[in-house]
């Protein structure tokens, strides 16, 4: 039989000075842990939210990403006439040959330059991506050295404002509009005409990838198999969504960092909880003796102190999660974006903190684990107290 929970709640309340510092310590650990995980989740969401389930992306066999892939103009010309491909009302096949390049652009903060991803798209490129919408200015024109960039990217780099320009290869490109990628990976890109990009970057008859929309689900399967089986092409086709979901590797360092920082900081939090619980046991020695005399077993005493530690930590966890949610909401309201290097494309990718209910649960579980671990030894000490000497304690 365990003691009533109100006994623990009131004891936590009565010792508010000691418990507040422990609660704040655990809150700090949990908020850092949740925020780092939220950052990783933001990156994952950006990649996971990208692409259209109806589209197929084609890259060179053996390439893991578009940036390391080459598709020739000949291959493009061959594939565009495959009967599985859907057509526009004007009778044009829904296929875009694309060139992915890196350009180094100065940051607005003045903290040097960073690579950004410049995507050259052909005529059907925009139509194939319903996630991307023009929100300011206009789209780039074919045959012009113009770009339309993501608004989120424009907030981070100088020269990305409408009318601004930046260096790309031997030339300068002029920004004519801003688009929104609806939280997808396209929010980290700048777009221009693919053939103009081939010319600037001297790519001859080479593209990086092809984006295709087959007619229907059956055509999608047939098209994918056809690409895979055609030995002359040496290309690989997969669903656009599947491709981007695999690109979440960028989130890995943040997950590792969250784990390492969480572990390091939790050691401190465990000691804080342990200290509080040891003090609590010391000041309640006679109470513990009395409870034992009344018939409460050693196990009940252990459970009582573990519960109290868990309660203390849960309060800290709740505060920590609330702080993390508060920070995330404030940053979202201000439109603050974060950027980091994408280890696939080596371009800067932008994203926002993303807190989901499961992250809150994870934060609370982490907090309670700290509390349980921190109170385990004090609880065992309480249970081992000899009853008579506990009763004689002042």
């Amino acid at each position, binding site marked *: 039989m365990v*003691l009533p929970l109100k006994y623990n709640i*009131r004891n936590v309340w009565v010792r508010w000075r000691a418990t507040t510092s422990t609660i704040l310590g655990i809150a700090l650990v949990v908020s850092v842990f949740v925020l780092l995980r939220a950052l990783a989740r933001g990156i994952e969401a950006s990649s996971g939210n990208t692409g259209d389930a109806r589209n197929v992306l084609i890259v060179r066999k053996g390439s893991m990403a578009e940036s390391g892939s080459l598709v020739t103009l000949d291959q493009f010309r061959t594939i565009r006439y495959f009967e599985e491909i859907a057509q526009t009302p004007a009778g044009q096949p829904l296929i875009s040959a694309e060139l992915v390049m890196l350009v180094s652009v100065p940051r607005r903060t003045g903290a040097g330059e960073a690579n950004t991803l410049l995507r050259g798209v052909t005529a059907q490129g925009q139509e194939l991506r319903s996630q991307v919408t023009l929100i300011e200015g206009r789209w780039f024109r074919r045959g012009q050295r113009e770009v339309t960039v993501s608004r989120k990217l424009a907030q981070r780099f100088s020269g990305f404002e409408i009318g601004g320009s930046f260096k790309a290869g031997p030339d300068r490109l002029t920004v004519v509009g801003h688009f929104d990628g609806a939280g997808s990976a396209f929010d980290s890109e700048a777009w221009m005409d693919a053939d103009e990009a081939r010319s600037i970057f001297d790519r001859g008859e080479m593209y990086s990838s092809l984006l295709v929309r087959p007619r229907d689900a059956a055509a999608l399967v047939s098209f994918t198999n056809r690409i895979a089986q055609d030995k002359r092409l040496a290309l690989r086709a997969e669903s656009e969504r599947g491709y981007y979901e695999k690109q979440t590797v960028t989130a890995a360092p943040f997950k590792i960092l969250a784990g390492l920082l969480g572990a390091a900081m939790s050691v401190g939090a465990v000691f804080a909880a342990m200290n509080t619980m040891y003090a609590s046991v010391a000041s309640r020695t*006679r*109470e513990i*003796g*009395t409870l*034992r005399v*009344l*018939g409460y077993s050693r196990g009940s005493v252990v459970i009582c102190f573990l519960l109290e530690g868990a309660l203390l930590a849960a309060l800290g966890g709740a505060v920590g999660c609330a702080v993390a949610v508060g920070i995330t909401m404030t940053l979202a309201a201000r439109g603050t974006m974060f950027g980091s290097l994408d280890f696939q494309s080596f371009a800067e990718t932008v994203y926002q903190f993303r807190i989901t209910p499961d992250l809150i649960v994870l934060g609370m579980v982490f907090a309670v684990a700290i509390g349980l671990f921190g109170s385990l030894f004090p609880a065992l000490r309480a249970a081992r107290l000899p009853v008579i000497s506990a009763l004689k304690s002042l």
Partner: protein
Amino acid sequence: METSHGPVEPIVQIRDLTKIYRQGDIDVTALAGVSLDIAPGEFVVLMGPSGSGKSTLLHLLAGIDRATSGTVLVQGINIANLNESELAGWRNQNVGFVFQSFNLIPVLTAAENVELPLLLTALSRSERKAQVRTALELVGLGDRAHHRPDQLSGGQQQRVAIARAIATDPALLVADEPTGNLDAKSAADVLNLLQRLSREAGKTVIMVTHDPKAASYGTRSLHLEKGEVERDVRATSFTP
């Protein structure tokens, strides 16, 4: 003790009870082969100088300490044969404790303190509440049920402790210097209460005290000296 129906079975039977403590390299004999019987309903007072073994005897017969040798049978049960967990359950059902410093849980109200031993029983919530109310009314504190210990006087706190001790309706009540921290008026109230519980409710009360005035409330006094019972004096009736 005998009644018209013949001899009464003792509630407590102690035989050759010895307790030796180890203090560093020295063995200290707290009790040296004590044997005695206590009949149901007796109000036994244990007296003697400090270190005479009276508290040790109280702890042993209440099952909160283990003897070095000898036996303690309470209602026929040899408590030395019970393991730690069985002993805790046995104490809960058979022994009520009253301490010198009241030992109430400061964060709980009077009613919640009285309910503590009942939480270990199979009683329903409403049965527990009823029993708590009865116990508090019996000690005259029905109107203080929702007061915390720090909102009560010393005498009232000790009466709450007595209510807690009788909540599970144990046959044995043990009290260790229950009036040691009380003024004369409160001490008299507490002693009268213990006497009433013995006389009217048939509880067997065993009380340790240094105070001869407190001792006069009992029906029997045992004087201990150097771990042995030196005198065993029975009163003919309850006083005062």
